[in-house]
């Protein structure tokens, strides 16, 4: 049987079939996004036509028109404030929690970590009514404080999980060397250890911003005119005229994905490490 074992591998062509397949599938996933973006630049007349038009003269009319609506800009401002606000707070809190879990290992750490994630077990719809009542009671409805607190609460557990993985990969000897040098815990946490878990910070930032940026249900229920974000704006704006305004949907949609695309693309190299939860590192 030796011959079969040593038979050289079949030479593959310039582009492997598998590579082509992978490209095909990836493009398939990208199609809806491509449709949204291309629609944003289509002249109104060629948006909803059958067969679809692929070649057209790009125009900015849809986008300028969408932006000229009363609330459009404020939707963006609201989205940016509560998304970035809540995620940054969440990461800060999560880092402190993850540091404690990783370094002090309080009794029952594993169970506590499990409990943390349990908020994500229950479907969001189950919480809508209780939160609505609670927010009314606490007069937090349609306020940034309320929304930021809510989204931060939702973002913390996952961030703790990601960051703890990263922190566990950073040897405690760094902390102890810091202590020996006379550094305070704060100094060690923020000047010695924090820079080493950058990929983890980026990963939790990206995952959470994706969630909060896209979240519709709670923003719709707990927010209001002063705090509605883009998803709610898109939903209400798209049906304003009685029929669905595809030009509006596509224009806002395009502007809406833009910041995310930029953020994710810029941090891609950190993100890949982030997806492994830092477990690849081991002791120092």
């Amino acid at each position: 049987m030796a011959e079969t074992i040593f038979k050289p591998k079949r030479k593959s062509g310039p582009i492997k079939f598998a590579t082509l397949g992978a490209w095909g599938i990836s493009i398939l996933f990208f199609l809806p996004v491509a449709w949204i973006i291309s629609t944003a630049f289509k002249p109104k007349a060629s948006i909803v036509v059958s067969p679809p038009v692929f070649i057209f003269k790009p125009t900015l009319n849809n986008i300028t028109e969408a932006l000229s609506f009363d609330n459009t800009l404020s939707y963006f401002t609201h989205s940016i404030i509560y998304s970035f606000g809540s995620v940054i707070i969440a990461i800060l809190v999560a880092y402190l929690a993850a540091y404690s879990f990783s370094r002090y290992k309080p009794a029952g750490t594993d169970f506590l970590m499990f409990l943390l994630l349990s908020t994500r077990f229950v479907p969001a719809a189950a919480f809508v009514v209780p939160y609505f009542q609670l927010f009314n009671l606490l007069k937090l409805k349609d306020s940034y404080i309320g929304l930021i607190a809510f989204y931060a609460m939702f973002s913390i557990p996952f961030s703790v999980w990601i960051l703890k993985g990263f922190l566990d990969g950073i040897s405690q000897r760094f902390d102890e060397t810091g202590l020996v040098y006379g550094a305070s815990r704060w100094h060690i946490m923020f000047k010695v250890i924090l820079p080493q878990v950058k990929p983890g910070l980026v990963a939790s930032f990206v995952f959470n911003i994706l969630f909060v940026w896209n979240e519709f249900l709670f923003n719709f229920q707990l927010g209001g005119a002063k705090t509605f974000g883009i998803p709610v704006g898109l939903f209400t704006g798209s049906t304003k005229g009685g029929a669905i305004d595809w030009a509006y949907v596509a224009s806002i949609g395009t502007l809406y994905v833009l910041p995310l695309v930029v953020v994710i693309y810029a941090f891609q190299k950190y993100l890949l490490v982030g997806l492994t939860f830092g477990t690849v590192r081991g002791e120092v």
Partner: protein
Amino acid sequence: MYDIKLQGITKKFDAFTAVNDINFTIPKSSVTVLLGPSGCGKTTLMRMIAGLESPTEGRIFFDEHDVTDVPTRRRNIGMVFQYPVIYRGTSVRKNLELPLLSEKLSKAEMDKRVDEVAEILDLQDVLKRQVEELDNGTRQKIAVGREVARQPRIILFDEPITNIDLTSKLELKRSMKELFGRLKQTIVYVTHDQTEAMTLADQIALMQDGVITQCDSPKEIYEKPNSQFAGWFLGNPGMNFVPPQFINVSGSKITSPLFSQTIDFGTKASSADTFGVRAEGINVSTTETKGGVQARVTRKSIGAGGQYLLDLAVGSLLIKARVSHSIGRTAKDAVWTSIESENITFFDKSGKAL
């Protein structure tokens, strides 16, 4: 510089007692090696000196200062860990300088200190390099140098050479030896490697089951182990132990089929239970000698220094002897052995040397 006094130090982890009521003084300005097998409590003891663990019971003094409740960062110590702690993304020089930054030294003083340690540790050529580019041995040198440059009063080493590959290990050990010769600090060095301990120590504190069983200079502890454990743990191979059935005691006189002389051991003779002899304490001859005890060679192997290690059977007793190259080479089946009285250490029933 400070000496380190340990008073009744005990450390318990739940039911496990890692360090058990140690009363001991680590002398100032010298190198004390805590040596012992894994799990004997040596690292725990060192971490308590550093303040990274707090003792369950007992007090720790640096000279007259009670530091038991003083946090690590106020103890003015240096510590090198098993895995080199280096700061990635910076140069070697920056790594050495980092802890000095908070001490508000003048630029000249800082450079002087860094250059000094770089010279002792042979790091001048890599000062400008990035730490990521360097091997583990060099990284550990950086970690050592960083502690030295800070000039704390006490420097603790927690098995710094253990995780370094073999070739860098020898070099690092040499650098450490040279460094320790120059330093005036009180140095505590933890290791389970006896050759490291023998090379570097002014005194070795041998630990077993959370207790320091003996503390002496390397030579003393090797030649005069105060327990069977010390005899067994130090030396490669460890001491030969001859069980009671090969010892005859009558009054103050001790005889054994293993040696031809009669040893007068005075009043202590009655408590002699076993005796130990080091492999190199056994004289071996390939020709019959007067008073020699005949032994059978069951195995021989050559060591790194060209000496031979012989496994000998004297009747039913098996012992190991280290012999010169020429004797080892020519030793055939039968050899004749003798043991000088001063190479024999008697132990009582509990394993304590008499």
